């Protein structure tokens, strides 16, 4: 069971040192191919024109923003249930990256929305739930930043993450109710055109590239976090020696 081997930070570090360069390289390659296909090869959409090219970064970032939260939820279980030493390291490393991708989804989305709906933002159900997700990311990061002892912070954040997971479907449901109740002015067809294969492949490859990039970043951030904790531990040792 690899997770067990990874329990030892030193072994984890050496593994990351070996694996990360390859992963990063692969991610860059796939992303490059995907972008090339989506920018140069993929045709424009018959009704959305060239703006559909935004979809190739918008949708992957949207998917990743959710994937990342799911990963944090699993890590939270790892912290509270399985007590895996790297679980909260993973959660802490993932939070800022997830927030970044969520922001990317929001930004590209509204850059798409301006030409499509003539407005940067709509209080439409799906958009709003992404915004709420973004805020939840920020809250988790804030909690990490404010609790100094990483172990305690990890447990606190884990609880909040799980409570959040329980709530996300409820939030989604209630936001849907809310927006349908009010029938927002502009009729949005978020799901856009039924995607034509000539667009689907570039989209999927770009999404794969994004995912690989995400995991490369995540591993790197995890390594940094392990090192940071090592520094802290040694500081504490220094303090202890200083006491005598």
């Amino acid at each position, binding site marked *: 069971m690899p997770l067990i081997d990874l329990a*030892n*930070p*030193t072994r984890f570090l050496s593994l990351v040192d070996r694996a990360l360069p390859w992963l990063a390289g692969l991610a860059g390659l796939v992303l490059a191919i995907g972008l090339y296909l989506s920018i140069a090869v993929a045709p*424009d959409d018959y*009704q*959305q*024109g*060239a*703006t559909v*090219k*935004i979809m190739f*970064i*918008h949708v992957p*970032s949207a998917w990743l923003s959710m994937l990342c939260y799911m990963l944090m939820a699993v890590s939270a279980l790892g912290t509270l249930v399985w007590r895996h*030493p790297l679980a909260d390291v993973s959660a802490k490393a993932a939070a*800022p*990256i997830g927030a*970044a*991708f969520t*922001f*990317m989804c929001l*930004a*590209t989305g509204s*850059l*798409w929305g*301006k*030409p499509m709906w003539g407005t940067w933002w709509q209080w439409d159900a799906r958009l709003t739930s992404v915004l709420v997700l973004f805020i939840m990311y920020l809250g988790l990061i804030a909690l990490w930043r404010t609790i100094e002892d990483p172990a305690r912070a990890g447990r606190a954040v884990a609880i909040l993450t799980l409570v959040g997971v329980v709530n996300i479907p409820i939030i989604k449901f209630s936001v849907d109710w809310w927006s349908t109740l009010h029938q927002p002015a502009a009729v949005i067809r978020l799901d856009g055109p039924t995607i034509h294969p000539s667009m689907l492949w570039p989209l999927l490859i770009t999404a794969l590239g994004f995912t690989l*990039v995400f995991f490369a*970043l995540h591993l*790197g*951030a995890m*390594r*940094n976090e392990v*090192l*940071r904790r*090592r*520094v*802290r*531990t*040694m500081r*504490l*040792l*220094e303090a*202890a*020696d200083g006491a005598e």
Partner: protein
Amino acid sequence: MFGLGTHWEFIAGAYAVSGAVLIALVAWVLSDLHVQRRILRDMDARGIRRRSDGGSA
């Protein structure tokens, strides 16, 4: 209903924003790595060494 190349600025903007975010993330990870490693080197120089992982004294 749109000709080719209309709204190119929005497309460029979207790609620019995404690129900036990705670059920022990479920069963050690398710089953080650099900082942590330097601190560890300094400590090593000061003769503070880990007696084992997980900070047991």
